[in-house]
Each structure stands twice: as structure tokens, then as C-alpha cells.
């Protein structure tokens, strides 16, 4: 029984990772760069419902970035940002509104600074942080929160 639960946890994480990477690649032109709206970031809301989303989202981000234009460096830094955001979401899971603050902040700061200092985007660090933060805000609050409300009603059907 213990093994079944353990296998299920990792398989759930893997499937969440596939969903994240698949959605990012599907919406590729707007998923990368300074002016990015990574719709798949709305999936961070899944960390409200299952801890399996924490490694799952980080893995999904790792593959999405690895298969995207940024390569290995982007994959490592991006997945670290997503991991921190998802951990924060899980900790604040009691309130849907507050739960999505950590991914917005973690991504805006880490990815914004990465774009500025690693990819040398010729905008100020604050501008990079605000651009990424805005895209993240649209993904998390435009889609993530409404999605979370639907999932709260239907988590039994979905198997969360």
C-alpha cells in the first residue's frame, strides 16, 4: 500500500510535468523571452491540491526550457524559480488568492534577473522583473485562480 501511494505520487508529478512542458511548447512564441506570458504557469495552482505538483512543475519547467531556445542554463535557473514558487504555493495552500503570490514573485525576480544579467537584455533589472512579473500575473491570476476554483469543485472527478 505504501509503495502504491509512493508510485502514485511520482507518477502524478510526472504527468503534471508533462502537462506543463506540453502547454509551454504548444504556446511557444509567448512562453519564452522578456515579454512572456507562460500560460502553463497557471498550473502552479495544482500545488494547492497535491504536493506532487512541486517536483512535477519543476520537472516540466526543466524540459520546457531545455527543449526551448534558452537551453540547459535556462532549464536549471527556470526550474529553480518554478520549484521555489511551487513550494510557496503549497505552504500557502489554504488561501487560493495568496497561494499564487510566490510563483509570481519567484519568477519575476529570478527570471527577470536572469534575463538582465545572464542574457544581457538591455533593459534595467527593475524593467525585466516587472515585465516577467506582469506575464506571470496574467497566467497565475487570469487563468490560475479561475482554474483553481473549478478544480476545488471537481477535484473528486479529477482524482486530485
Amino acid at each position, binding site marked *: 500500500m505504501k*509503495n*502504491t501511494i*509512493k*508510485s*502514485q505520487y*511520482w*507518477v*502524478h*508529478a*510526472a*504527468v*503534471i*510535468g*508533462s*502537462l506543463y*512542458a*506540453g502547454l509551454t*511548447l*504548444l*504556446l*511557444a*512564441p509567448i512562453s*519564452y*523571452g*522578456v515579454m512572456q*506570458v507562460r*500560460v502553463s504557469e*497557471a498550473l502552479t495552482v495544482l500545488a494547492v491540491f497535491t504536493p506532487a505538483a512541486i*517536483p*512535477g512543475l519543476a*520537472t*516540466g519547467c*526543466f*524540459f520546457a526550457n*531545455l*527543449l*526551448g*531556445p*534558452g*537551453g*540547459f*542554463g*535556462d532549464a536549471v535557473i527556470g526550474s529553480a524559480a518554478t520549484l521555489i514558487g511551487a513550494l510557496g504555493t503549497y505552504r500557502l495552500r489554504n488561501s487560493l488568492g495568496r497561494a499564487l503570490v510566490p510563483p509570481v514573485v519567484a519568477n519575476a525576480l529570478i527570471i527577470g534577473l536572469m534575463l538582465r544579467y*545572464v*542574457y*544581457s*537584455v*538591455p533593459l534595467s533589472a527593475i524593467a525585466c522583473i516587472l515585465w516577467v512579473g506582469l506575464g506571470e500575473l*496574467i497566467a497565475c491570476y*487570469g*487563468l490560475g485562480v*479561475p*482554474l483553481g476554483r*473549478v*478544480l476545488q469543485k*471537481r477535484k473528486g*472527478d*479529477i*482524482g*486530485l
Partner: protein
Amino acid sequence: MAIKDITLGQYFPGESAVHRLDPRTKILGTFVFIISLFIVNRFAGFAIAAVFLGAVIAASRVPLKFMLKGLRPILFLIVFSTLLNLFVTTGTPIFQIGPLSVTEEGVYRASFMVIRLILLIFGSSLLTLVTKPITLTDGIERLLSPMNIVKLPSHELAMMMTIALRFIPTLLDETDKIMKAQTARGADFESGNLFRRAKGLIPLLVPLFVSAFRIAADLAMAMEARCYRGGKGRTRMNGMAFTGLDALAFLVLAVYFGSIVYVRLVTA
């Protein structure tokens, strides 16, 4: 973008020496190369990095066309950054176009940034061009295995990554089917402002989650039926071992990194 247009992974099959290297060597090499690009503080350092990378690309026999393809998505970023650096940086003017002047410092800064960006993209995309994603995952598992001491489940993480990779195409197919079914029922994924369009994806995501978690439940049950017990005592059909080729690669890497550090220290 149409789902059929998506290519997963960019592995370029081959039997070159670079392809045959242990994935751990390639991952560590990529890390060292990326770090080295941030140690460089003058063009001489970039010249060394370019020669090193050029030699590795030549040894890998990956056509240059393939490497250049990786630059296409960031072409806008390169052009935008170059123009902004050229015209915004203040300093000794070289020539003037209307109210904008190009300065010596601007040319230096723009060239420095573009060279670093191109080397960064080439260097990190080479890893995925010469390593299959599954091999890469195995390499990550082995590199993370010492972390088992601090209870990091490296085997489970690698297994999760392998399953995640395996299911990306399956879930993309599923997304395509659901998208068509919902469009036929009147769902609109393409009109309205960004918030409205984002919210419009809910009729796609909810059935997708139902389907994905059903797949996950079936897979977990199948693993259980085959007595899966995690990484403890598990053996591999294809073992991983460092060879003489890897030793040579580490030696070349050490010489390269030493040269980069030397150039940096000399100019400090």
C-alpha cells in the same frame, strides 16, 4: 502553433566522440562552459571559448545549420539588444544618424553581449543535440545520487523525469483532441484580451487534467502490478561508466577553463 508542428527534443543522432561521451561528462562540461562565459571580461577570453566550442562542434559532426536553427527564436532579442546597446551607450562618438550617435563604448558593449549570448546558446544547445533526453535523465540521476545521503530521492526524480518526457507527446495528442471537441461545442480560444483568453483555456484544461490523472492512475497500478519498489537494489541493462575518452574530455576541459581563468587574472 499547430500541435503537429512541435518537435520534441533536438537530438541529432550520431556516433561521434562527443556523442559517445558519458552524459555526466557532457552535463558537467556544459556547466563549466557556461560558468567560463561569465568569467570572461575581454574579447581574448571569448576567442578561447569560441575556438574551444568550435572544436567540440566540429568533433560532434553536428551540422552548423542545426546549431544556427537554435538561434532563430532569440534573433529578435539579439537584434533588439544590439541596437539598444549601440545607440543608448554614452561615450566617444564614432558617427551620428540623426539625433542618435553610435559610440565606441556602445560598439564594444553590443559586440561583447552578442558574442556571449551566441556562445551561451550554442554551448547549451549542443548538450541536447548530442545527448538523448533519456540518457540525459540517467546522467542527472547518477550526478544526484551522492545527494541520497541527505535523503534526496535521485532515482525517483529520474524516473519522474523519464515518465514526464514519455508523456509529453501523449498529452499533446490529448490536448489536440480536446481542443477540437471543445471548439466544436463553441469554445473560443482566440478572441478577447489576454485575461479573457487565459480564462478561455479552462474548458481545455479541466478535461485534460481528468485524462492525465486517469493515465497516471493506470500507470501507477501497472507499476505496482510489476512489483516496482523504487531504486533500492535496482540494476541497469545499460550501465554507465567513464572511459578513457571521458578522461581526455576532462583534461581538455581543465586546460580550457585554466586558460579562461588565466586570461581573466592577467587582465585583472
